[in-house]
């Protein structure tokens, strides 16, 4: 890890803006602490004991609040204005990052960053959405909503990874692909579709993590691989809760209900067998300790790549196909006992054990739950 700070770090001094609507109780304690600290400075009286108690209370309350986030609260945390973005991980988890630009066809889409770098002992190609931190950066990268050239740049980087035997690491953080005229003209459907097909057969390991927002096809466009993880308070959904509410309930007001119904949290998606791991976040969310968050992610990628590199390419691709083939497989046969769902073959022998591996109270990330002996 190098310590170069980047756009992602924050929270040294929390302000009202860093507290979300549902964190009001936390903010009140925070204000009390600030007041006492000022009083202590001004009046010279010693409040150290009260301060200690207050800080303890703040910690406990944060812990309690974050151990039972609703789906909608998770969405808010995942979209937190100070949540670490891809550039944060590129500056901390990735060493010696060397960005490459352009799709060699049309342009360079800043909504997706690609480049070489090292994660732990592994030389890799990194691909990540960038939502942008300040206003000008956000506008330059369309708030992380990529155009076809972004997906094609990602594919170009992946093909290069394949050619030179580097694994691919993807950081997913987008509301979705950019819904615009140019995107349609330049074939956004085709660009995403081609990535899905090519990622399923790329002859090098691919590991993905949803670091913030996993928005539908725009997320999946760099989200097919051997392993897919999500941060504890990230979300991944086929449609935004707001969009879903507008269509199904005919009102955006039902976004909380929509968020709940869509089963978009890491925990839910683990249960549905759609992701492989949940990576623990620091107490109170990634934005409260971006460096620790990056360390967890680094460990996840380092461990996953070590496992995956042991497979021969044929085995890797066979396992990847089986994994993808088993995703979202829920159906039953009308002619048979309607009560017994035919969930097609489990993705691996260990698919049934401990799917949910979020453990509380530690900063360490969850272990790889799937056994990973090379099969050939």
């Amino acid at each position, binding site marked *: 890890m190098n310590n170069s700070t980047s756009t992602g770090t924050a929270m040294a001094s929390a302000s009202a803006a860093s507290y979300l609507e549902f964190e009001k109780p936390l903010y009140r304690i925070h204000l009390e602490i600030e007041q006492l600290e000022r009083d202590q400075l001004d009046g010279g009286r010693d409040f150290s004991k009260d301060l200690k108690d207050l800080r303890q209370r703040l910690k406990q309350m944060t812990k309690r609040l974050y151990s039972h986030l609703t789906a909608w609260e998770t969405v808010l945390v995942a979209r937190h204005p100070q949540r670490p973005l891809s550039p944060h991980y590129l500056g901390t988890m990735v060493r010696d990052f060397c960005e490459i630009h352009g799709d060699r066809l049309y342009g360079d889409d800043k909504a997706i960053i690609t480049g070489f770098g090292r994660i732990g002992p592994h030389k890799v190609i990194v691909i990540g959405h960038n939502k942008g931190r300040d206003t000008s950066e956000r506008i330059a990268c369309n708030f992380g909503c990529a155009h076809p050239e972004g997906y094609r740049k990602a594919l170009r980087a992946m093909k290069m990874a394949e050619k030179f035997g580097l694994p691919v690491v993807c950081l997913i953080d987008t509301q979705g*692909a*950019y*819904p*615009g*005229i140019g*995107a*349609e*003209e*330049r*074939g*956004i*459907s*085709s660009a*995403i*579709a*081609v990535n*899905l*097909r*090519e990622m*399923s*057969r790329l002859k090098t390991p691919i590991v993905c993590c949803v670091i913030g927002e996993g928005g*539908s*096809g725009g997320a*999946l*466009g760099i989200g*097919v691989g051997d392993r897919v993880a999500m941060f504890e308070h990230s979300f*991944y*959904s*086929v*449609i935004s809760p707001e969009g*879903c509410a507008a*269509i*199904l*309930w005919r009102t955006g007001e039902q976004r909380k209900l929509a968020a709940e*119904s*869509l*089963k*978009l949290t890491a925990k839910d*998606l683990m249960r*549905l067998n*759609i992701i492989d791991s949940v990576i623990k976040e620091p107490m109170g969310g990634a934005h409260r300790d971006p460096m620790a968050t990056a360390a967890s992610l680094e460990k996840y990628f380092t461990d996953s790549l070590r496992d995956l590199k042991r497979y021969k390419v044929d085995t890797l691709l066979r396992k*990847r*196909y089986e994994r*993808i*083939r088993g*995703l*979202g*497989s*829920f*159906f*039953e*046969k*009308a*002619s*048979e006992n*309607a009560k017994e*769902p035919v969930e*097609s073959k489990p993705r691996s022998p260990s698919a049934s054990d401990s799917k949910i591996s979020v453990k509380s109270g530690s900063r360490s990330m969850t272990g790889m739950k799937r056994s990973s002996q090379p099969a050939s």
Partner: protein
Amino acid sequence: MIDRSERIDVPKGKWDRCEGCGHMLFHRELQENLFTCPKCDHHRRINARTRIEQLCDPESFEEFLKDLVPTDPLKFKDRVPYSERIKAQQDKTGETEAVVVGKAYIRGRPVILAVMNPAFIMASMGSVVGEKITSAIERATDEALPFVMVAASGGARMQEGMVSLMQMARTSAALARFDDAGGLYIVVCTDPTTAGVAASFASLGDLILAEPKAMVGFAGPRVIANTVKQELPEGFQSSEFMLEHGFVDRIVSRTDLRKEIGRIIDYCGK
């Protein structure tokens, strides 16, 4: 994604008004013209069975995976529980789901065929749709047959959430293997081919045909208009638009589809 319960080729009386030009047509004439208007060439949406009848050699279609039905993995309930929506659609259409797959002959050439059914929740893609299409592709790979996909879809089946999104990955992965095996994949985009279906298997054909004036595109036009805050160009997200921008090979009238598919198979099939 959107359940516009539109009337799809179930005209009652003898006469029918063309949705394109308003011309009154004798129903029999419309049917003989494969539900396209002889005056303005408007292509009416047709259900999967009608399509199969039009496309395949008589009696040649042999359906598989007919009995797969959706479960309700999310236990989803909006204004109506998902399970009830499904039941209502099944009763309305007489189909179990939004795609029909099987083996067929088109002008004497054997193919694996998948036809999406816009009459069933606008052919939105859930787990069963994904499973049937993936299995059909695997079958085409095993039997070394061309795979023909008549695509139509409003997009993801929202009520299946992420389960729905994963169907894009499954179908595309199966197509990668089919491609590796040298299989010929022909897509026919029909009205509407959008969103998750457009951004997966419908865009991966070796050849991509489209019926005239079908809506073909990724994002919903209203979403785009709200984002870019400008009027959308005339003919935006149509078959013709996709042809102009290089994402469709040929626009083919419904009445020529059999001939065109047969011809492509003769050039590329094995």
